């Protein structure tokens, strides 16, 4: 019989980034008891890394902006396989969610008349991103954290969840351990909100933290929820490439929003040669117009550097593959050139992009006000995740909700920059609201001791083989495999290999060993994270195989075109009764006419 401490809440939120905090605040405001578990310390979740801004059609800078334009931009960016209802709710509710942050103490950069300033970003027709320099994520998480701690939310820091527990079909609790001492904890709850973020640690080159191991995706899947769109991984076009220790670290799209240009080793601005047909009418065809756009000229069209991330990343890969890359295998991103255009360029860059200036200066010995940066794609974000009801965010498991990056639907095949922070707020709030409602309407489920005993036995197994394989080796081999076989450019054979190799890695993961005891033991923690990261890696590979076309973030060199029959479907993954992973195509819900008209008008 395992020993553990028990906590009981109406609503349990798993994850403490933007979505988790916003959900917890909302549930608490609804008057139910709320517990929150974070894998790290409070305020350190990956939201803190978001740089560019929060997309919301406030129309403070360009009064032509409204929810319809934001909706159409989001759908176009997602190649129309987004869930239309989520895209609609997101575009309509984002402005209110941003204004609410201000009421809670957030301090955004201002327009001349004292309103929230908005900046340009890829795929957004008008300047739309509310921001604070290039540290918007920090402002957002700190605001939510400081507001949240006064709302009676009970926060459990440095807890990892091992399994979700069910009472029949519905959710009943979560079982995990504290990282500090390795003690087991049972969290009983009427409703659970998953807000665990991303999966970047399945890849070798990533902008993500150690804790982005897809826990929510995996927990939901093993508890019987469905995952959709798992093939769509966003490779951010601009990560640092040199020195090796910072490879993959994010370089904000804000650099391009402020006028930064991409060039190859021949000093050619290559993006002008690759403007896709559906973006031609809204993209500048000469550098002069592009620059005017970045300085706020409303009659200018945006420069091609601000095309969607999937497209820019692929163009960069092409330049590198065809031998036009930089010495360290990237391309150049140059913001220093704006000194030709404005006086005080150096001060301007430091004020608009302070973290980027600091990051390159401190870690790369590059002064971005004087010389170009070297950049290349980095694994950044997963569009796929838990399949949820668009209004309530509940999965098919009664009482289990998901919001933010670990949920799916809003982004389709590619996410626009800035839509993530607004997604966290809009759907975090909705998840919290409906989880609280569910908790009020339902009683507490019973937690099954059998499920707990299995979780405990699995968790302690690595201590039984202390001569077993090093868990870090398994993790590293998986990251290499995913990077090479299910990366930016994919094909059938490599992905089939990946699926087979993942089975072998599962076998190795079952035999890893750890040294030391249960007190804060990173080797053990890494061993336990393998279950999540292997589960989602398999889901990504299987979904990518199933989508036999190229669309948005999925690019297959064996099937480089879009295929009509995949234009109205999502890939859907679920665990079969025998424990195997099943994948199928699920038709998208039909879009109502009033939204079709919005899209037609914005073409």
């Amino acid at each position: 019989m395992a020993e553990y401490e028990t906590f009981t809440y109406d609503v349990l939120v798993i994850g403490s980034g933007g979505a988790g905090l916003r959900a917890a605040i909302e549930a608490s405001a609804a008057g139910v008891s709320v517990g929150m578990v974070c894998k790290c310390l409070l305020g350190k979740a990956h939201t803190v890394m978001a740089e560019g801004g929060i997309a919301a059609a406030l129309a403070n800078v360009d009064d032509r902006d409204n929810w319809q334009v934001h909706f159409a931009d989001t759908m176009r960016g997602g190649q129309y396989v987004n869930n239309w209802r989520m895209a609609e709710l997101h575009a309509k509710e984002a402005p209110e969610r941003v204004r609410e942050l201000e009421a809670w103490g957030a301090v955004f950069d201002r327009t001349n008349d004292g309103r929230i300033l908005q900046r340009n970003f890829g795929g957004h027709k008008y300047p739309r991103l509310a921001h604070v320099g290039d540290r918007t994520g920090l402002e957002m998480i700190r605001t939510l954290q400081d507001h949240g701690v006064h709302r009676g939310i009970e926060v459990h820091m440095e807890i990892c969840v091992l399994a979700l527990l069910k009472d029949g079909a519905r959710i009943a609790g979560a079982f995990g351990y504290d990282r500090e001492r390795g003690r087991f904890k049972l969290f009983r709850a009427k409703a659970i909100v998953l807000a665990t973020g991303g999966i970047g640690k399945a890849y070798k080159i990533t902008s993500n933290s150690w804790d982005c191991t897809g826990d929510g995706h995996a927990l939901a899947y093993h508890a019987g929820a469905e995952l959709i769109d798992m093939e769509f991984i966003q490779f951010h076009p601009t990560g640092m490439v040199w020195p090796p220790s910072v490879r993959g670290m994010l370089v904000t799209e804000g650099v391009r929003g402020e006028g930064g240009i991409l060039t190859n080793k021949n000093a050619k601005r290559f993006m002008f040669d690759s403007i896709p047909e559906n973006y031609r009418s809204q993209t500048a065809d000469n550098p002069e117009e592009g620059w005017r756009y970045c300085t706020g000229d409303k009659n200018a069209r945006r420069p091609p550097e601000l095309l969607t991330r999937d497209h820019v990343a692929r163009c960069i890969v092409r330049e590198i593959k065809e031998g036009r890359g930089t010495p360290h295998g990237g391309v150049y991103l140059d913001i220093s050139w704006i000194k030709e255009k404005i006086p005080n360029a150096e001060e301007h860059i430091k004020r608009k992009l302070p973290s980027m200036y600091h990051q390159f200066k401190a870690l790369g010995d590059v002064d971005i006000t004087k010389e170009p940066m070297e950049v290349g794609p980095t694994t950044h974000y997963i569009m796929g995740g838990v399949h949820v009801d668009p209004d309530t965010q509940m999965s098919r498991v009664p009482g289990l909700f998901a919001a933010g990056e670990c949920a799916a639907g809003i982004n389709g095949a590619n996410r626009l920059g800035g839509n993530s922070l607004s997604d966290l707020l809009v759907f975090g709030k909705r998840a919290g609201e409906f989880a609280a409602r569910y908790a009020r309407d339902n009683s507490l489920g019973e937690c099954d001791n059998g499920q707990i005993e299995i979780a405990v036995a699995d968790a302690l197994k690595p201590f039984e083989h202390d001569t077993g394989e090093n868990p870090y080796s398994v993790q590293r081999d998986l990251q290499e495999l995913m990077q090479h076989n299910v990366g930016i450019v994919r094909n059938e054979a490599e992905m089939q290999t990946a699926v087979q190799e993942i089975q072998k890695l599962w076998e190795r993961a079952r035999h890893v060993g750890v040294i030391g005891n249960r007190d804060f033991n990173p080797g053990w923690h890494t061993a336990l994270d393998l279950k999540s990261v292997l589960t989602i890696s398999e889901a990504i590979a299987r979904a990518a195989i199933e989508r036999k076309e190229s669309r948005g973030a999925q690019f297959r060199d064996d099937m480089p075109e879009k295929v009509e029959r995949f234009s109205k479907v999502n890939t859907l993954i679920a665990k079969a009764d025998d424990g195997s992973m099943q994948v199928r195509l699920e038709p998208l819900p039909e879009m109502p006419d009033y939204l079709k008209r919005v899209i037609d008008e914005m073409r």
Partner: protein
Amino acid sequence: MSETRTAVFKVWRGDVNGGEFRDYTTEVAEGMVVLDAVHDIQRTQANDLACRWNCKAGKCGSCSAEVNGMPKLMCMTRLSELPLDQPVRIEPMKAFPIIKDLITDVSWNFRVKKKIKPFKPRPPDAPDGTWRMKQGDIDRIEEFRKCIECFLCQDVCHVLRDHRKHDEFIGPRFLVHVAALEMHPLDTENRIDELRRAQGIGYCNITKCCTKVCPESIHITDNAIIPLKERVVDQFFDPFGWIWRGLKRRLDRAAAATRTAGRKR
């Protein structure tokens, strides 16, 4: 490119019952930071070596430790800045109780913050519920809001580190937090009384150690603590202030009485 070389790291290993420095040797590659070395050691030689980290980009403030005796973010400390002909000493922060190896119990900081009165904005300026603020009026608190809560300033502050005044003094981090609230153009809360009493601002004798170690280069002492001290002095210790406030209270009361009387008529 430089050829491969190695460096020795003396890493503190232990827990609340005590510990010792242990030597580990790793290869040094170009651009490497201290956290890379710790990860290398963790991956290849000591799977159970405990260290906190998240972003590895100087933005989350998790990997705080003391490197060669200086409070540092391990992810932003380049090996090229350190004399590698000698071993590099890495040990946990000193102002907080040890948990294991490089990890300390920083939960005190979260308890302190919870006690600070939350933001309380004035009523919105516009009918749509929004406010107007000039960029010039928020520049100074944007500096404070850059804080990543790494707690290095708390670690180096002698009031906490040496004198262990954790019950009477909130430390530089939270004085910066109070400054960000107090100087927020929209905030209406009175924070001065608490600063003097519960938050112990008087303990700070502006040695500026906190400013020196701040990885975000926040001018903690000059821009946050000294202006707060001035406000405390203005409210509590300025004799002209006492007289003026007493006079003003009386005048205000008289004016209010006149207004009330006027309405009655």
